[in-house]
């Protein structure tokens, strides 16, 4: 397969400038494609490690280097030796130092152009690496790609065997940078990225003990869009009775969990950021007192968009300021400076795209700045947006830095709000449809409808969500199920067939089979169910309607 020549982009800040040479990438064996590094850290999972490793060694894409890193715990060198595969590099460490350290240790030795990841109790399907390499070497300008995974619920027998009860694609979400800043929506095992991106993002944070995958995917989002491959290429296991690790950690030590979350959210990789806008928050305080400190702490706790917090203070107050937090920039101003003078002083130090002006008596809660900021990012008008809870007595807003700067230069003698009006910059409240996470709010409503047994409403919501927000495969599958429950079997059959033509899952195969059986089309039902059973038994799924899939090529 010949990859088309990429068009050079003058704004491209990547090191390899100029047009990409034509490449021949053979998905079948990958011997002439770029080297891919697969990282497989392991700790006390002797029972499942062989299956995980086999799934890597059996990739149709062959040009791999596979790092297995023993992070203390049980010996596994005998297992590794038994494979006799020269592509495997075994790092055998006796002491347990955590997953981030294990990954960094391997990355220090990695040579691949791309990096992929596998946990020692999960599996890739044979086409996983080839599918993602194909995309990254192809016409996308993304340097990160990810696929869909089955979450496999299983029972573990006394002997340690895993008996599969179900496989579900629970999330199949197209890349959403704003969501990624708030929380992760890309599974680590589904991810592949260019290794040289880590020169920009930095390596794995060894101070974190959970959510390390979100930390890296969030940082990658500063430098690249992610290409979502809507294909199931692997599985991660969820034994019944075992707590979800994140939920467990959250319950066990809420403060530690919060520490990890805030540490991630306040991480700012070195600039330039080709894909991320920066925000300066100017906190307007009278003095460094308890109210000011509380405001700082609340900003630190509740803000998820990357920011720098600039606090205009007198030199004496700067000396009194005793907060050990990242991204805080005290700005020296004369005592008795007016609010406008404080803003001007801080503004001179702002380098990002957006500025939020916040008095310390402002109520700061979840999404306090992100909601109006999102509206501003998607606005084409010359305007700013009020923060939620802003009043004429407690005025707070987010603006484009260039607009604020221009208004202040032209009308320095006026208060900030008046100078914006004089410069013709309107500041208003965002409308409901301008706010972020519309998809998630609709999803919440649809799930409520499902739980209430209101299937027709749920079905319509899912279909409209697919039309309006994307995530088509996910929404079609959800709508198909809701239509089936509401006894609209015709529509359920249409939607499930559409999904099964391109990317079947066990759920959609089962659903379409039930519809076909109702229609007494037993032959088709048997074929679909047999395919579902194959997938549950461990075989790679293929399109349920191959003859229809061929017509798409």
């Amino acid at each position, binding site marked *: 397969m010949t990859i088309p020549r990429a068009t050079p982009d003058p704004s491209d800040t990547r090191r390899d400038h100029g047009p990409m040479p034509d490449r021949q990438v053979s998905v079948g064996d990958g011997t002439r494609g770029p080297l891919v590094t697969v990282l497989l850290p392991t700790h006390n999972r002797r029972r499942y490690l062989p299956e995980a490793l086999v799934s890597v060694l059996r990739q149709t894409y062959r040009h791999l280097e596979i790092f297995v890193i023993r992070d203390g715990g049980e010996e596994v060198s005998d297992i590794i030796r038994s494979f006799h595969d020269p592509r495997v590099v075994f790092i055998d460490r006796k002491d347990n130092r955590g997953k981030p350290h294990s990954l960094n240790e391997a990355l220090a030795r990695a040579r691949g152009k791309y990096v992929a990841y596998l946990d020692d109790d999960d599996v890739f399907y044979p086409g996983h690496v080839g599918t993602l390499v194909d995309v990254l070497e192809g016409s996308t300008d993304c340097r990160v790609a990810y696929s869909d995974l089955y979450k496999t619920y299983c029972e573990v027998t006394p002997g340690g065997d895993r008996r599969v*009860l*179900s496989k579900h694609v629970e999330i199949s979400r197209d890349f959403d940078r704003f969501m990624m800043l708030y929380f992760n929506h890309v599974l680590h095992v589904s991810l592949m990225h260019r290794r040289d991106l880590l020169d920009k993002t930095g390596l794995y944070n060894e101070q974190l003990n959970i959510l390390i995958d979100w930390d890296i995917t969030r940082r990658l989002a500063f430098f690249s869009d992610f290409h979502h491959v809507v294909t199931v290429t692997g599985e991660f296991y969820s034994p019944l009775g075992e707590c979800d690790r994140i939920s467990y950690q959250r319950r066990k030590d809420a403060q530690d969990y919060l520490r990890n979350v805030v540490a991630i959210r306040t991480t700012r990789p070195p600039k330039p950021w080709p894909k991320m806008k920066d925000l300066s928050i100017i906190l307007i305080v009278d003095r460094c007192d308890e109210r000011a400190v509380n405001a700082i702490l609340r900003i630190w706790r509740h803000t998820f968009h990357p920011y720098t917090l600039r606090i205009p203070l007198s030199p004496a107050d700067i000396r009194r300021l005793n907060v050990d937090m990242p991204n805080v920039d005290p700005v020296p101003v004369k005592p008795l400076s007016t609010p406008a003078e404080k803003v001007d002083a801080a503004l001179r130090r702002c380098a990002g795209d957006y500025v939020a002006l916040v008095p310390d008596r402002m109520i700061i809660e979840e999404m306090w700045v992100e909601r109006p900021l999102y509206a501003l990012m998607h606005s084409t008008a010359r305007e700013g947006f009020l923060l939620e809870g802003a009043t004429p007595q407690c005025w707070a807003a987010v603006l484009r830095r260039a607009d604020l700067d221009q208004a202040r230069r032209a009308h320095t003698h006026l208060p900030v709000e008046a100078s914006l009006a004089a410069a013709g910059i309107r500041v208003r409240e965002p409308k409901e449809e301008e706010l972020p996470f519309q998809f998630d709010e609709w999803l919440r409503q649809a799930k409520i409808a499902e739980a209430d047994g209101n299937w027709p409403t749920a079905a319509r919501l899912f279909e409209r969500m697919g039309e309006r927000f994307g995530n088509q495969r996910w929404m079609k599958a959800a709508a198909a199920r809701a239509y089936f429950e509401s006894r609209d079997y015709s529509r359920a059959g249409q939607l499930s067939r559409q999904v099964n033509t391109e990317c079947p899952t066990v759920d959609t195969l089962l659903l379409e089979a039930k519809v076909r059986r109702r229609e007494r089309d*037993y032959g088709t039902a048997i074929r679909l169910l047999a395919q579902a059973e194959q997938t549950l038994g461990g075989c790679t799924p293929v399109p349920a309607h191959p003859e229809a899939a061929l017509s798409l090529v």
Partner: protein
Amino acid sequence: MNTARTNDADRHKKAQHYEVLRELGDCHTSVGNYTEAQRCYEKAASLGPDEPGPYVGLGVAAIQKNKLDEAEIAFRVACRLDPNCAKAYAGLAMVAQQRRDFPQAFDLYLRSLELDTDSIAALLGMFQVSCEMHSFAKIIYYLEVYLQMHPGDTSVMFALAALYLKDNRPERSETMLLDLLSLEPAHRDAANLLEEVRHTLAGAI
């Protein structure tokens, strides 16, 4: 905590593989692949040991292979797992019917019908058994009740017409057949039976 939602979440995690195998077994049964059906039901039973469905399926497959003892065991397991499993009682009735124990078959079909008033299989089984026993009063009653709830069901109408004739009520039989033919003018069996009824009526005059 919402118990209903927790139960749904548990079912979501546990039931899929079982459901695939059970559906596959049912489909194989529908096309007569009883060996394949049995394989699927056995696997389904191991995944859902508390579910009666696979055992009902195994019983049906065994009946088709004329393995009545095996079928009876399977249906009894299903009844034990779910005392309200109408299909299991219908299955036991079929076994009894095959063994020509018609009174027991009738009672088991009746039990099945009490659990599922829409069970056409139970009704038609009762019809067949009643004909064997030459005892029509009870089955006529249940068919009339069913027809009240499902007006226009021509298979039940035809069965009733035949029973009325056997029960020496040719006038009622004629009325029923005329109603049936108004719904399905091309119903050949009904037309033939109507001719027979009219012949009987003519002979009675």
